[in-house]
């Protein structure tokens, strides 16, 4: 009997447990999902959605991927796992390709839903819409730079499950059409977006105009210089822009740049806050408090959940906050391309007539150069976070032989000596030892001087500047030069050069293509822009021609846009040890190519535009392949 009691109880429980309110009981609003209605009635929720879209902005160079900022042999990568990048002979056709139509779709959905929203205040709504359009245009700009013309999808599309998806397959637009779209979007939204030079991480009028001037300039130079490489074009102009369109684009680039320069988009100016010009140029990138130069940035916040480790990866190894650092080692070619203060080019004077030049101080060889050099590169004999770096490769004896070590700061007994002395710097350079300054230099640009920035637990919140006033000036200079206004171009170049401490201003007659290219090379290095300059000028296959660089050649032709960049070279400081000699204790410099650099990069015609993957072509046979692939 007893065992039935439980059965009966269970039956009763089941029977009485149900009630007529069950439907209400189960119908609960989800607590982890916001409905569209909930989002698009609350401005702060809309802003969070927009924030997600901002977060997915595509950059070519990124602070959280240090190598992306230092590619194309502008620097050696002092990390053992990265040496193969200097041992191969180029890049696959698929390199740098992007095709994130999922992102485009989500922006389109955002635009459609925000457009339908009725509860949002009108002024907020138009700003949100304009920001999303800015992001969409930015992504199309990024795609056209890498892939050429792409399908232009401006509304969300839905599959109808009919078994035939062909109506979702769109052919590629022409390259010019995508650039036109970017320019026209910028024109359309620039007056809707706020005119506010203090708003850096959200789209503003300044950001729209900066995007417009860059896009127009890229399109113009592809039209003009694309004529030199007819191989890099497609019959349908999905790649390649007719040369006749160059002038129109250059005019647009100049107009948009001048709109920023004139102040109509807000009080933007060159950053000029510190008396020391090198420190000033360095601070341009980390000073977030009062920076009129930054126009549009990716911002970070320590303690706010968004940080990057750029400083940790690249801090000088000696005295580093972690047992690593020193990865980006700017090349000799890059360092020597900084002009002397009178505006002339000169190689680093390490030898005169085959004899070494002895310097009293280790940094003297770099004296009297463009202030941007010391602002971009950590040179031997300088400091970072108030700690001196210890970069010297060894001791040269009287007979020319070298005593050096294979670990950082190693000590040895010199011939004729009795005590052990240090024979190599704590920052190297030691050939093949990762994290030491193997080219003789570390990078300074974008390094964070705050304590803890090089610690994994803290990291850095230096922002990444996507558009800045300095680039706008250089865009204006290039456009003006190409439009036959060299005096105007010289004026813009001189503003940038004066900030770098160059004393001799350029005249219109001095401005030529090499000048423009050189100024962009030194001013905008390590900002993810050099690669696209090489591509749009159709110089990439010339400077990256797959031929090794000889030692005789490396110090030649400084400042020429076509100078070979297939391999990074190094210049190492040595101490001279010869007691009794007047040069004893002085420093001399030797140029070398590191033993790990065995390849020479070759940029093929098929690299100009990234390969559209076979999977994409299978899904959409209307896509035309890029040239030479």
């Amino acid at each position, binding site marked *: 009997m007893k065992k039935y009691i439980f059965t009966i109880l269970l039956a009763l429980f089941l029977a009485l447990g149900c009630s007529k309110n069950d439907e209400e009981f189960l119908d609960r609003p989800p607590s982890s999902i916001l409905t569209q209605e909930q989002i698009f009635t609350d401005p702060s929720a809309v802003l969070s959605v927009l924030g997600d879209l901002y977060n997915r902005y595509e950059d070519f160079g990124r602070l959280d991927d240090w190598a992306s900022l230092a590619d194309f042999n502008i620097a050696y990568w002092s990390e053992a796992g990265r040496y193969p990048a200097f041992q191969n*002979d180029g890049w696959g056709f698929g390199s740098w390709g992007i095709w994130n139509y999922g992102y485009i779709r989500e922006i389109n959905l955002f635009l459609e839903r925000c457009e339908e929203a009725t509860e949002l205040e009108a002024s907020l709504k138009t700003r949100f819409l304009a920001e999303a359009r800015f992001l969409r245009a930015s992504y199309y700009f990024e795609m056209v730079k890498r892939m050429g013309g792409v399908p232009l999808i401006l509304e969300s599309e839905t599959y109808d499950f009919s078994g035939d998806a062909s109506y979702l397959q769109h052919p590629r637009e022409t390259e010019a059409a995508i650039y036109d779209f970017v320019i026209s979007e910028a024109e359309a939204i620039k007056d809707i977006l706020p005119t506010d030079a203090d708003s850096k991480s959200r789209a503003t009028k300044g950001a729209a105009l900066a995007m417009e001037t860059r896009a127009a300039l890229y399109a113009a130079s592809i039209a003009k210089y694309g004529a030199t490489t007819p191989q890099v074009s497609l019959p349908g102009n999905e790649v390649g822009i007719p040369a006749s369109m160059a002038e129109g684009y250059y005019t647009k680039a100049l107009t948009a740049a001048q709109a920023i320069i004139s102040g109509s988009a807000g009080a933007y100016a060159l950053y000029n806050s510190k008396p020391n010009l090198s420190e000033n140029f360095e601070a341009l990138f980390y000073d977030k408090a009062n920076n009129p130069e930054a126009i549009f940035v990716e911002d970070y916040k320590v303690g706010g959940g968004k940080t990057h480790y750029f400083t940790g990866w690249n801090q000088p190894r000696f005295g580093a906050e972690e047992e690593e650092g020193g990865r980006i080692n700017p090349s000799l070619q890059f360092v020597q391309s900084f002009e002397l203060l009178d505006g002339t080019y000169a190689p680093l004077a390490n030898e005169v007539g085959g004899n070494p030049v002895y310097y009293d101080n280790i940094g003297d060889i770099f004296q009297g150069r463009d202030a941007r050099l010391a602002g971009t590169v950590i040179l031997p004999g300088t400091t970072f976070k108030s700690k001196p770096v210890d970069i010297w490769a060894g001791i040269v004896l009287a007979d020319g032989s070298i005593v050096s070590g294979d670990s950082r700061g190693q000590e040895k007994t010199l011939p004729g000596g009795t005590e052990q002395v240090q024979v190599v710097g704590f920052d190297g350079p030691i050939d093949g030892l990762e994290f030491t300054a193997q080219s003789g230099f570390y990078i300074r640009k974008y390094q964070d001087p705050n304590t803890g920035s090089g610690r994994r637990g803290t990291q850095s919140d230096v922002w990444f500047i996507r558009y800045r006033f300095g680039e706008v000036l250089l865009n204006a200079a290039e456009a003006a030069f190409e439009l036959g206004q060299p005096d105007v171009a010289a004026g813009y170049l001189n503003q940038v050069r004066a900030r770098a401490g160059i004393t001799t201003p350029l005249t219109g007659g001095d401005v030529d293509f090499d000048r423009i290219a050189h100024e962009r090379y030194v001013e905008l290095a390590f900002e993810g822009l050099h690669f696209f300059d090489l591509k749009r000028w159709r110089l990439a296959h010339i400077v990256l021609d*797959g031929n090794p660089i000889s030692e005789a050649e490396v110090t030649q032709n400084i400042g020429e846009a076509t100078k070979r960049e297939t391999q990074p070279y190094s210049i190492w400081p040595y101490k001279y040890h010869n007691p009794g000699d007047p040069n004893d204790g002085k420093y001399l410099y030797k140029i070398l190519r590191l033993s790990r650099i*065995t390849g020479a990069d*070759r940029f093929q015609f098929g690299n100009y535009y990234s390969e559209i993957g076979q999977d994409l*072509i*299978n899904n959409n*046979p209307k896509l035309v392949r890029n*040239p030479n*692939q």
Partner: protein
Amino acid sequence: MKAKFYIFIFSALLLVTSCSLDNFDEPNAMFSGNIVYNGEAIPVARNQVRFQLWQPGYALTAPIDVAIAQDGSYSSRLFTGEYKLSFVPGQGPFRTPTDTIFFELTGDKAMDIEVTPYHMIRNSQFSYTAGSVNASCAVEQIITGADAKTVERVTLIINRTLFVDANSGGEGSLAQVDAADLSDLDNINMSVEIPSDPKKPDQNYIFARIGVKIAGIEDMIYTQVQKIEF
């Protein structure tokens, strides 16, 4: 016991027979030949020049890339079927046939593909003297008229292994030198010193070839690789 035995036999039989049931046949036709001009193979850089084979009649069409070896030959193992052959525009130091070539493959097939190079290297001679490789050659212009292209540089490349070309970095080139004087294309002389590397064993031979870079064309045309003993 007996049942277990049968299960074992049965599964073993299943195992050995099922592969042939649900697998495709392996490609069984060998397609090979040379890229030729007047019957002479055109040497190029290894894996740098390629053409594409397309098999029409399928819903998804992806090309089969066939790379040309450094002696100008190629080979590809394919399925029986119909193919069309086309060159990617801009590939190779030659003008390619403008027409697509159709062919049917049933068994092994050898086919030479006739192309017209912009230049050919003639009378190449290599010699060794005192640690250096000397070479001489003449460059003959084949395509003249409106499509003619000039010679950008003539390079002598040496390597320790059989693979010699100017584009594979240290893998293909131990040392290389450009001809200093291109004024007389019938008589070009170059000399390159063999660099010594204490980390590698001595060898009493070296491989060399001459490459010609034609202005506006990415791929270089070469001579056949020559083994030089000393």
